[in-house]
């Protein structure tokens, strides 16, 4: 008996040995003696989903994209387009041909020269295939090589947002070996780019390490390494900053902002976010729509807008870290945003009731819920995604209360993002209201296109249709005169504001924080008001340096 037990013990010990063997096999190689390597550690919540811009769709991928790749054109610190890989560019008089002259002497990480071939391959791949960034090149028919450092890009109509196209130029000498459909699953382990930092290690679920590219064509980075560390939640992320395990974070637990602000070694950055969250309505007029036809009446949607206490929603759902929403394009993108001065629908339940009353919805049977003339109750199904964090759920609870107040009943069903997509796209839009959100670009076209008639069943999640709106969209798309274009874009937002297929609930702030005791030279983009770590350009990573 005893002997058998000791056998068991030995077996256990062997197992222990194997396990410890496993773990030690993971240990990093001792590459170089630890001379003063300056490492900037950044804490983030979401990990990129891929190393390839042709695969990745999570915004977390921008971590890699911004450090590793360059575009032809980038934004300067005041959001004006400037050349990055492109030295200069011109557009033909008819607005259909763009010619880019490329910078010479730029090398890929593996030593190959960067040339026109890379640009041509990347642009054509995006145009001919269907990749997440393809939408940036909507309207482009093809790219042609003129000489080694000149590229011609042809469009079918003038493309007002050409300078805003965010396209990471990929190395043709690596990618051209694959067929377009293979690129749906091909990703380099460590992408070869031209950017200021090279990715050298990715421990999934833990961190990604980048090494400085001393030969970066704009200017050499002033730190040796950047490590992005991934945390499962805001809370631990914030704590890591407080104790100094990381030097900066791209999100902050909202309850801890005051504590962080009080810390003299920590700087909290609060910037207007480029996003919006909407209460959307099922505006699908087609026969097969399973939505409640009552929400097709703009009066009801408009009344909802007046009934919502958006200040309270921002205060509770976002802990005050946001702006009550108005129009489709958020204030953070500057002049494209339309602000509804006097016509603003601010919290006013009385006005909301009046609108409903005038449109013929009254509560005749005294149950607190209004009916139309035929006795159909204003009783709506409300789909709420619960898998995207707490804000949607909290907001929906307040919305329910606000609508109850004006005699509209809602039944909230919580579901995950996939289920809601199914409901809208696969099951004939089997709900009446929903909450969802969008991130927005610096150029307004893409977000304006969401509510186009042609996007019903595609990117549109309200299935809204308005001919005047559609026409204005085409007009702004080819309007190269910026001032005129701004005007059209404002006009479009006004339509949406009054018709309310989307009631914009809020624009969420971007919150970041960094430690000031080890590094200096942090840059905000746009200057003064923008973010530091998550940026539209690379300024911060070139300017930040050890103290």
């Amino acid at each position: 008996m005893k002997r058998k037990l000791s056998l068991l013990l030995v077996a256990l010990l062997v197992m222990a040995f194997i396990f410890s063997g496993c773990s030690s096999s993971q240990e990093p190689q001792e590459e170089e003696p630890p001379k003063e390597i300056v490492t900037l550690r950044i804490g983030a919540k979401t990990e990129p989903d891929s190393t390839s811009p042709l695969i990745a769709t999570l915004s977390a991928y921008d971590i890699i994209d911004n450090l590793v790749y360059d575009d032809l054109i980038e934004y300067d610190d005041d959001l004006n387009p400037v050349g990055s890989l492109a030295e200069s560019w011109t557009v033909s008089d008819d607005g259909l041909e763009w010619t880019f002259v490329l910078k010479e002497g730029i090398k890929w990480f593996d030593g190959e020269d960067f040339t026109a071939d890379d640009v041509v391959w990347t642009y054509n791949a995006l145009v001919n295939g269907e990749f997440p960034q393809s939408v940036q090149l909507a309207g482009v028919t093809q790219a042609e090589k003129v000489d080694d450092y000149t590229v011609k890009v042809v469009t079918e109509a003038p493309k007002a947002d050409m300078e805003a196209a965010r396209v990471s130029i990929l190395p043709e000498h690596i990618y051209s070996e694959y067929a377009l459909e293979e690129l749906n699953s091909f990703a380099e382990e460590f992408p070869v780019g031209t950017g200021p930092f090279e990715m050298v290690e990715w421990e999934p679920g833990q961190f990604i390490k980048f090494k400085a590219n001393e030969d970066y064509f704009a200017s050499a980075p002033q730190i040796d390494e950047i490590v992005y560390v991934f945390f499962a939640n805001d809370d631990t992320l914030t704590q890591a900053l407080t104790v100094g395990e990381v030097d900066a974070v791209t999100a902050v637990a909202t309850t801890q902002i005051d504590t962080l602000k009080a810390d003299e070694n920590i700087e909290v950055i609060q910037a207007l976010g480029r996003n919006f969250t909407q209460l959307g309505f099922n505006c699908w007029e087609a026969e097969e729509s399973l939505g409640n036809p009552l929400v097709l009446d703009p009066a009801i949607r408009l009344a909802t807008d007046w009934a919502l206490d958006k200040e309270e929603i921002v205060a509770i759902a976002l802990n005050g870290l946001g702006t009550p929403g108005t129009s489709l394009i958020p204030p953070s993108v500057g002049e494209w945003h339309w602000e509804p001065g006097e016509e603003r629908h601010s919290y006013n339940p009385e006005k909301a009731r009046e609108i409903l009353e005038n449109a013929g919805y009254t509560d005749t049977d005294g149950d607190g819920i209004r009916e139309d003339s035929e006795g159909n109750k204003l009783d709506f199904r409300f789909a709420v995604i619960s898998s995207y964090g707490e804000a949607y759920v909290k907001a929906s609870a307040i919305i329910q209360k606000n609508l109850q107040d004006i005699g509209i009943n809602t039944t909230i069903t919580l579901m995950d993002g996939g289920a809601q997509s199914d409901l809208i796209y696969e099951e004939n839009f089997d709900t009446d209201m929903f909450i969802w959100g969008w991130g927005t670009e610096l150029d307004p076209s893409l977000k304006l296109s969401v509510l186009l008639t042609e996007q019903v069943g595609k990117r549109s999640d309200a299935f809204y249709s308005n001919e005047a709106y559609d026409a204005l969209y085409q007009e702004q798309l080819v309007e190269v005169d910026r001032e005129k274009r701004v005007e059209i874009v404002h006009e479009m937002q006004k339509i949406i504001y009054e018709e309310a297929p989307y009631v914009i609930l809020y624009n969420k702030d971007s919150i970041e924080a960094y430690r000031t005791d080890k590094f200096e030279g942090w840059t905000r983009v746009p200057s003064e008001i923008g973010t530091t770590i998550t940026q539209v350009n690379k300024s911060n990573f070139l300017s930040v340096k050890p103290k």
Partner: protein
Amino acid sequence: MTYRREDFELHKKNFKNFITLFKGNPMGIIGFYIIVFFLVVALVGPILYHYNPQDFNSAHMIEAPSRQFVLGTDDMGRDILGALIYGSRVSLMIGVFATLISVFIGTLVGLVSGFIGGRLDSVLMRFTDGFMVLPKLPLIMILAALLGSSTRNIIIVLGLTSWTGTARLVRSQTLSVKQRAFIERAFAVGAGRVYIMLRHVLPNVFPLVFSNTILVTATAILTETTLSFLGLGNPMVPSWGQILRGAFTSGAVSIGAWWYFIPAGLAVIVLVLGFTFLGYSFDEILNPKLRSR
């Protein structure tokens, strides 16, 4: 066959015997009182203590206990004591109903499997084994995501995934009851199988099922809490798990807002402990093998 007087006397004697033994079991007594306490809170609390889950208030978010809010407020400015009182209702309800489903399935499978025997038995038991090894929490998480997280669905999911232990237990007990003389006698008199199963086997299996039920309830409550914490519960219903999730996601832990997660955590622990104590002591009393020691 009629219900004979001797049977009744026997049951009565057993019951008296049980009560005497139970009174001498301090753990069981504690468990009993804990459960009674929470039952009273769940039944009477909401009547005596006003709480409206729609009382959002941005002016009182995550506030420390005060005269107005005895146990402080949550991240939507609501009273935590009220949420705890309402939560006891939700937690108990989910625990009890999930257990009913689970015990029903488990008893049915175990009884049929053990009593009928043969090929049906091995098929049912293979299936039970297959189900038993499925990793519980991931399975429950997947099902909850699949069905959507209403309270009703959570109850169904918990019920559907926790019957295997009961089935095994009932089966082995049925097998031993089946050997007894009175079953043979019943067969001899020509009683039907279903009749014997319900009339003779079930009552004899029941005591063990009962103590098992109590333990299953404890697990169900614990699992519901975990599920809510992981974000797969129904956030519109104020359960204890939701309070804990709120505390975790709102960062209350790192600012030391103890009132947000300590009382709710303790409530879960004490209630689960109550059920465990009671179930464990029942097991000791009813399981003759354990008692004889």
